[in-house]
């Protein structure tokens, strides 16, 4: 469904993503894992043509045979929000602060469909309900009146409103506390099983990957170092960097390892820790 090939993203002479290739199947949940500077968020932004202006990209991103990198503005707009939608990390700023959640959801519907005002409202309320939110209240609320977890769930409701085929979730739980994170990932799971949408899930923490992701791609400094089924990558990581990333998660077992890095057999090696 989505085929990225030889994607490069550069800022001036600096290559931030290097000749990256990646494929996504229908109804698949792909975990794109990596640390800061790995280029995972840039790759995600490139799919929707949302890269900041000074960055340029080359290569090809095919969406059901359509070349996304050479799409005119109008067709891209038609695609975004309806076929491909996003959820971002910074839930505080996902919604415009001085407009109600409801008016922003209806704005999204208006942009893509022609519906009667009452139907629009009904549709939004249903979607908020689905996201486990008190629909009427959230609909009339300004973003600042909601908690972080509620905002992120409202953002997911917005992303799912038009039943997209692909949802790109860029660190959707990083800024949330662990209990809210769980609810948010649960919502994505439900959307996947109910509508069969594909999900690209960007994360720096592989902790929940086993439960949610079908496939995992590990990125480092602009390239994918390893891809494979979630189970294969998590249990038998082939690349040393994947091994290190997995070993970095403190295990919750009765018998604790003395050291984290040591358990991956990577004692002497320095972690990737570069100044910004």
């Amino acid at each position, binding site marked *: 469904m989505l085929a990225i090939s030889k994607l490069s993203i550069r800022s001036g002479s600096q290559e931030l993503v290097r000749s990256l290739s990646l494929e996504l199947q229908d109804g698949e949940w792909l975990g794109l894992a990596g640390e800061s500077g790995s280029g995972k968020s840039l790759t995600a932004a490139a799919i929707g043509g949302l890269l900041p202006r000074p960055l340029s990209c080359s290569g090809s991103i095919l969406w059901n045979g359509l070349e996304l990198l050479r799409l005119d503005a109008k067709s891209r707009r038609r695609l975004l929000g309806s076929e491909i939608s996003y959820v971002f990390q910074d839930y505080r700023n996902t919604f415009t602060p001085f407009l109600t959640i409801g008016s922003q959801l209806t704005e999204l519907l208006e942009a893509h469909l022609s519906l009667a005002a009452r139907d629009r409202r009904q549709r939004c309320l249903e979607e908020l309900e689905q996201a486990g939110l008190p629909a009427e209240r959230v609909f009339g609320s300004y973003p600042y009146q909601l908690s972080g977890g509620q905002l992120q769930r409202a953002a997911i409701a917005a992303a799912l409103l038009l039943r997209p085929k692909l949802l790109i979730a860029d660190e959707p739980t990083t800024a949330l506390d662990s209990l809210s994170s769980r609810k948010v990932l649960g919502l994505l799971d439900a959307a996947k099983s109910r509508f069969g949408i594909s999900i690209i899930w960007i994360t720096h*923490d592989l902790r929940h990957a086993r439960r949610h992701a079908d496939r995992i791609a590990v990125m480092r400094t602009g390239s994918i170092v390893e891809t494979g089924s979630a189970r294969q990558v998590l249990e038998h990581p082939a690349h040393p960097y994947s091994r290190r990333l997995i070993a970095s998660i403190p*295990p919750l077992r009765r018998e604790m390892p003395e050291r984290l890095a040591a358990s991956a057999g990577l004692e002497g090696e320095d*972690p990737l820790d570069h100044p910004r």
Partner: protein
Amino acid sequence: MTIHDNAPLLTVRNVRKNYGGKAVLHDVSFELKKGECLGIVGESGSGKSTLARCLLTLSGWDEGEIAFRGEPLAKASRAKLMQVRPQMGAVFQNPAASLNPRLRIIDSLLEPLDQRRGFRPAILDGVPPGREAAAAALLELVRLPASTMGSYPHELSGGQKQRIAIARAISSAPAFLVLDEPTASLDMTTQAAVLDLLKDLRKELSLSCLFISHDLAAVHFMSDETMVMRNGHIVDRFRNNELFDDVRHDYTKLLLEVFQE
């Protein structure tokens, strides 16, 4: 000053703190013993960082008592506080804010030692005199090259800055360390490296510490005993291997489930 080895370093009794008309700490009580690492786990807003600032005498509280080596701190004079504070060490969450951006690393690193002239901690035994030698030795302790001392904070990564904060905190041989989310703003692999470092240092220097984190797994990795905080209350507390017992508080079980996935 001789202290009985088993006497607690820190005694917290029924501490309560209000903020904006709401209690952010309810009736918090615990003890920290020498050589022990006590973990505090809780979500944001649970009051764990507020508690840390109270323990460090950086902010006041409304009821109850916090005593350091048996000495009550609630009504301590400013002079008393200035005498007590250097015996506590702290590492905070945000490495970007933990170093004065205008000072070279060596000056930030040695601030505690510069402040107490004539004092030489045991970790510097056998190190030649002079500031540079001391800085190099401290940097080595946290696995950083001596050349780092000439840099400014903005030239370093978050992990490096956090290591410097750790070196600085242990430089004056404090009675205990408060580690308030020391890894939360670091990348995963850096996080692991810092956790490993802290664990090594704990063993090498037999540090006493309070390890505060939202991450149950990290707390479990670091500490001997763990307290679970929620809405300003301590809802559960257990020795390390008791975490998996069935008698745990529901909230603890929930956290365990989340972090075990």
